[in-house]
């Protein structure tokens, strides 16, 4: 019974997500859009199933919520910091820097989320991975202390992602 359910819903979270996105796109809470969203949510994971080999399992749902809140808060704080750098710091005083963040994460999905987070928090842009994916190259807009930025990325984001994905 469970195996049958698993074959019909190979990816239950994707089903849920697609249904929610469809209802939001339609922007009205009618049974109509809900049913059509559910149909899409069942068909799309079913068709795309071969393209999702060895998906990671999300282990720690409270941590997902905590991670999203931490990132949103950091975006607000970092926006103000970067606005101050742009407005009040002379271009000659600014210290742009490349930093290398050694990764403990090995799951490709987790590294993608980490790189995306680093880019979305202003002041840092993730620019490249090392050849075998063991290090992440990050560009900082203004980093008098590059090691502190690296430690913050590792302790705030990577530690939480490690608990979520691995």
């Amino acid at each position, binding site marked *: 019974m469970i195996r049958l359910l698993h074959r019909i819903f190979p990816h239950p979270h994707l089903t849920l997500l697609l249904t929610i*996105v469809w209802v*939001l*796109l339609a*922007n009205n*809470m009618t049974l109509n859009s809900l049913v059509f969203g559910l149909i899409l949510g069942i068909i799309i994971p079913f068709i795309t199933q071969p393209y999702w080999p060895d998906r990671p399992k999300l282990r720690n749902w409270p941590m997902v919520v905590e991670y999203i809140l931490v990132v949103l808060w950091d*975006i*607000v704080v970092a*926006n103000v910091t*970067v*606005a101050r750098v*742009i*407005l009040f710091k002379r*271009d000659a005083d*600014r210290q*742009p820097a*490349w*930093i*290398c963040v*050694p990764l403990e994460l090995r799951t490709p999905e987790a590294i993608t989320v980490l*790189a*995306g987070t680093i*880019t*979305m*928090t*202003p*002041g840092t*842009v*993730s*620019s*490249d*991975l*090392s*050849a*075998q*994916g*063991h*290090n992440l*190259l990050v*560009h900082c*807009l203004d980093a008098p202390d590059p090691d502190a930025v690296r430690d913050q990325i590792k302790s705030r984001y990577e530690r939480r992602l490690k608990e979520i994905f691995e």
Partner: protein
Amino acid sequence: MGFIIELLIAFFLIVSGIFGVVGSYGMIKLKDPMSRLHAPTKATTLGVGGVLLASICHSVLIEEHLSLHELLITLFLFLTAPITALFIAKWHIHRHEKPSDLPDAGEDELWATHAVEQVEDVPDHSKS
């Protein structure tokens, strides 16, 4: 009560406007291409986020119907903006940076963009 609601919406609009202007000003003021890349990622986060919050508040508090379209815009921006930034950054590394200009890549020795240039024939991963 209506006044407070309008004040709240105006606050979000002004915040997003300020960050939009600062982001655009950064594009002019910052001189090197990698630093310029920071400006657009800024405008998409708080700049667009403020407009979307104002839009949600307006539809919920004044028009009195729930509209969560805006959350989707945020979601799609968060998916697409880092990829655009990564492509521009990789282009910059490809054209303008030598391996010696970048920090040491640890045990892998080279960053992916430079490693691809050095490999003559790209290894075939489909067999493994």
